[in-house]
């Protein structure tokens, strides 16, 4: 370095470089500013997938339609029994025609309105149980995985609950309360969270000892904050996937309960008891439509939720963000 350069340096160094800078929030933010927003990026990645957008639109339309269906003109009451004007007998097993779009069932009720009413019931059960499962399952699962002294007792409780047949609990519930929509929701809610809790617990155990969590702990971060700010954001994608899956699973479970005779009474149409009614008639080819229509609706709903859940959980992973 020549003498000239040293002179130049000393000229540049001035006293105000050694003054304490005041903290200026706007200045500080300017350096580290990025217009990245987690949920917006997730959404952007999600809508790049054409199939997912199509299914989302389809589900939105289906949801709106199930909501407004009873208020549309010319809709029939799902429990009303239609009478054949010529014979004065119930209009049973009437194949689909312009009057009854999906035909009638064995006691002359309109299948079109029964299916939409059933979809309403099943989606309601699916959504409530799914959300409940997520809230309770994640809370207990995260605590189970993160707090060491809770591990043994909750594991034992898990073993016990998991091995008591759910059917006993359901039979007990139907005796204590009348079989209704809410009995169903409570009965499913009582037992369904345990799998979600175990799932979240396993994931928590895997990431709880990473360095950033140890650092956080050394800095004195309270447990609650570590769980909500350090652990759960990492799990958003898998948790989203399992919530999306729990809705079709709940609908499938409802079909199963109806199958073993513990489902909703026939007076409350649901996809479960529609399929069950249809099953009994499937040996007669002309009446097979009574099984096929509810099956199609249930398949559309479950496949859509499953695919959307998959795409959404990919999109929720920050590694896939631009």
């Amino acid at each position, binding site marked *: 370095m020549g003498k000239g350069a040293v002179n130049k340096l000393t000229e540049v160094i001035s006293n105000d470089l050694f003054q304490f800078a005041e903290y200026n929030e706007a200045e500080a933010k300017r350096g580290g500013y990025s217009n990245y927003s987690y949920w917006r990026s997730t959404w952007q990645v999600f809508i790049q997938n054409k199939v997912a957008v199509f299914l989302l639109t389809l589900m939105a339309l289906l949801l709106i339609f199930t909501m407004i269906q009873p208020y549309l003109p010319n809709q029939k009451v799902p429990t009303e029994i239609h009478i054949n004007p010529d014979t004065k007998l119930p209009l049973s097993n009437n194949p689909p025609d312009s009057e009854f779009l999906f035909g009638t069932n064995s006691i002359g009720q309109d299948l079109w309105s029964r299916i939409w009413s059933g979809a309403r019931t099943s989606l309601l059960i699916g959504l409530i149980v799914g959300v409940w499962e997520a809230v309770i399952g994640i809370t207990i699962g995260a605590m189970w995985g993160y707090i060491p002294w809770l591990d043994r007792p909750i594991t034992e409780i898990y073993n016990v609950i998991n091995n*008591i047949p759910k059917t*006993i609990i359901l039979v007990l519930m139907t005796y204590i309360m009348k079989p209704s929509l809410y009995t169903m929701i409570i009965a499913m809610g009582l037992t369904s969270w345990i799998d979600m809790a175990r799932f979240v617990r396993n994931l928590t155990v895997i990431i709880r*000892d990473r360095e950033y969590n140890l650092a956080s702990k050394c800095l004195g971060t309270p447990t609650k904050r570590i769980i909500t700010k350090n652990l759960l954001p990492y799990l958003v994608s898998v948790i989203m996937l399992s919530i999306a899956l729990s809705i079709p699973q709940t609908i499938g479970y409802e079909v199963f309960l109806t199958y073993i005779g513990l489902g909703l009474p026939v007076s409350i149409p649901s996809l479960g008891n529609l399929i069950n009614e249809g099953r009994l008639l499937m040996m007669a080819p002309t009446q097979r439509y009574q099984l096929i229509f509810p*099956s199609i609706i249930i398949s559309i709903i479950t496949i859509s939720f499953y695919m959307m859940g998959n795409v959404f959980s990919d999109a929720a992973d920050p590694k896939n963000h631009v």
Partner: protein
Amino acid sequence: MLKYSIKRLLQSLFTLFIIVTIVFLLMRLLPEEGYFGASYEKLDEQQREAILTSMGLRDPIHKQLVNFYKNILTGNLGQSITFRPKVPVIDIIKDKVPYSLYFGLAAIGMSLSVGVTLGIAMAKNKNKFWDRFGTGYVVFIRAVPAAVYFLFLQLYITGIFKLPMLFDIDKPKTWILPVISMSLGGIASYAMWMRRYMVDELNKDYVKLARAKGLKSKSIMVKHIFRNAFVPMAQYLPASILFTIAGSIYIESLYSIPGMGGLLVEVIKRQDNTLVQALVLIYSSIGIVGLFLGDLLMAIFDPRINLDKKGGAR
């Protein structure tokens, strides 16, 4: 390892005791009408009392519980009370288990071989035809309720291939469709997890090293990746093999197979206390032992897993 196994099995005995006791008490909470089924209305108060006393339900609950445990310790599971009155529980179960066992084992064999092969094919051809085909299949099976596709299979496949609709023990042809239907779900989940774990393993350093050393792609797949990818799946294998004796409720009723599927549900609804208790005892022991064997199997597949060490990473 031995010490760990003994300790763990002893702890499980305690868990088992709690489970069976809770189920025992829950069954006593059910209303007494349930013991009579449809004949409840036809009987008067005295007859009902006589029947309940003969079933042993008029003894104080703690006495019933003590009797029950005394019987278990002598290897006596008791007699059925409403399902097939006075028939020893063990005989009812003994008649039904073989059917469920054979079907279950055949289905597991099929889902393992087909599912794992499909999963490997999917991982090897990621984002190509086999991967898309497999994903489509997995989505379909997981999303459509089993009750629905089982029924359509029975309906249409029997028609196309001229197979009989109902099961008959002497006709081997009638075994085909139930086994296929039963394994569809297993194939989907084995394929899905196999693909997931294989894809995760494919990018690891040891695979690159093996390639650099000039090993053949096939031997890397079989000896290295497969072995590592199978470890997490090994956990579920023993339990699913043991649980084949529980049978499949849908399949067995669809094809009228006289197996165990649905027996538990049926006896709970008919409040056959002894049979329920016996089944719960059997199933929970299987569940607990299956979990334990799964851990052992994982340790065999992956020698790095040490079950003796306390607390894992912590």
